């Protein structure tokens, strides 16, 4: 077992040590929090356990093929032999035992790492509301009354509770170095809980194809120390724009973060990122419930459609 784990750790090291990891970490093989770390451990453990079933195949197939080759007339040949009680027990038994062990583990870790499960911590949790739009992410910090496009900044060692939805087609939200992904769906809310134990920049992305700008829907997750985080909050609160219904309608049109920034003429924040100094109350909820009012929403008022018109969204009750 140990050797196997070493072997595979070395293999993953090969992946892990690739040059790009220097800047933005984008894989759970380089975890920055306990969840991703547990996921990596789980992966390696499965690798280890399944080897018990797999290595025999890898050893026996070449050996048997060679030893019992047609030309080796000295090898034993038993054309009628087709059963063996002992082999039968082994063949069914060993995989059953492995699957049982892995199942027990699966039950435990799936509960522990359930994305809906709040993370126990003395530090109060930070709430972030996420709205997936076509080819960018809108992050709302309801407790701080700010919002950003494509910039998720969180304090270190603080549990973060995400509530997620989308105002277009389905997307999937993943910050691999911190935790696994969760779908965002129109008119529905999903949840995700993460905690980062290291500062740094980690890539977040949408993994569910949603049109031509799909590959641009990535963002930096910046984990800051508590004091830096406060400074960052102050910086955003001083931004030039506030998020209004009108600006949201513009933002919601299919565009990448950089295009949206240009369309809004925003000047604060890094490239491709928009900071909003304030957010109307209940923004997230109004997006979430938009599709639930029971009236038909024409395509022109659905962000992401071919016919979407920002001004149709502004007056929701036409």
């Amino acid at each position, binding site marked *: 077992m140990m050797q196997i784990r070493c072997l595979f750790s070395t293999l993953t090291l090969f992946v892990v040590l690739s040059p790009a990891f220097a800047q933005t970490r984008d894989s759970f093989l380089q975890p920055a929090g306990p969840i991703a770390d547990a996921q990596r451990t789980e992966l390696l453990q499965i690798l280890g356990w399944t080897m018990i079933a797999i290595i025999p195949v890898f050893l026996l197939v070449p050996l048997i093929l060679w030893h019992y080759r047609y030309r080796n007339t000295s090898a034993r040949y038993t054309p009628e032999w087709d059963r063996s009680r002992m082999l039968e027990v082994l063949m069914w038994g060993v995989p059953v035992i492995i699957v049982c062990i892995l199942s027990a583990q699966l039950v435990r870790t799936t509960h522990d790492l359930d994305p809906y499960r709040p993370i126990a911590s003395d530090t109060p949790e930070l709430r972030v509301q996420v709205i997936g739009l076509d080819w960018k992410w809108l992050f709302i910090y309801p407790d701080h009354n700010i919002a950003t496009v494509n910039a998720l900044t969180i304090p270190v060692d603080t549990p973060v509770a995400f509530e997620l939805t989308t105002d277009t087609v389905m997307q999937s939200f993943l910050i691999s170095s911190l935790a696994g992904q969760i779908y965002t769906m129109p008119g529905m809310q999903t949840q995700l809980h993460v905690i980062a134990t290291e500062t740094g920049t980690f890539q977040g992305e949408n993994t569910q194809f949603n049109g031509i700008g799909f590959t641009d829907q990535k963002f930096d997750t910046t984990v800051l120390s508590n004091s830096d985080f406060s400074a960052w909050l102050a910086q955003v609160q001083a931004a030039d724009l506030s998020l209004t219904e009108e600006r949201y309608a513009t933002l919601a049109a299919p565009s990448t973060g950089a295009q949206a920034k240009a369309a809004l003429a925003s000047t604060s924040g890094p490239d491709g990122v928009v900071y909003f100094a304030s957010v109307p109350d209940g923004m997230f909820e109004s997006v979430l419930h938009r599709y*639930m*009012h*029971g*009236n038909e929403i024409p395509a022109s008022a659905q962000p992401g459609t071919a016919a979407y018109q920002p001004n149709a969204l502004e007056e929701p009750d036409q």
Partner: protein
Amino acid sequence: MTQPNAKLHPGLNLGHHHGEAHNQAETVVFGFWVFLMSDLILFGLTFASYITLANNMGMASGPTPADIIDLVNVFAQTVLLLVSSLTFGVASLTMRHKMPAKVTIAWLGLSLVLGLAFLGLAALDFLNMANQGAVPSRSGYLSGLWSLVGLHAVHVTAGCFWIMIMIAQIAVLGLHPIVKSRVLRLGLFWHFLDIVWIGIFSIVYLGGLL
């Protein structure tokens, strides 16, 4: 090989006194059963998606079951379909007992009339719903309802055409072995639609009103 009275396939068998026709029916009728199983899955899943949509969210503030269900009409439809199943059963028996082709045709014709009457009432029901604005484009719930009931109605329509064709075939070809086996299969289909309808009646209509 087979026992004289052994059934060759589930359901009504022609019986050994039909000779070759009885044996030929074995494979085709069995095949038709398998087809019905597949069709049943289709209905089952349509039911399942209907059920997921028959709630407040799926109704989207639109018409609710109480607004649109006309139980009298639906009950009449149920009776028509059940009776037509009965008359079809009689048609099959007349064939099994080698009564004259005319008799079989008459019973088939009666089943057809009842089937058409069922479709007429169903159309009326759909029309009434549409007049109240309960069209499938109004809500997920109505989409589910129209598609489930509609899927059944399409089946009944196909069944009615099939009865017409069988009447024509009996008239033209007589009770040829292959024609007999087709009538057997049509019978299975017709009874199957009855069972599905009972499901619709209980889940969509009675369940909707609860």
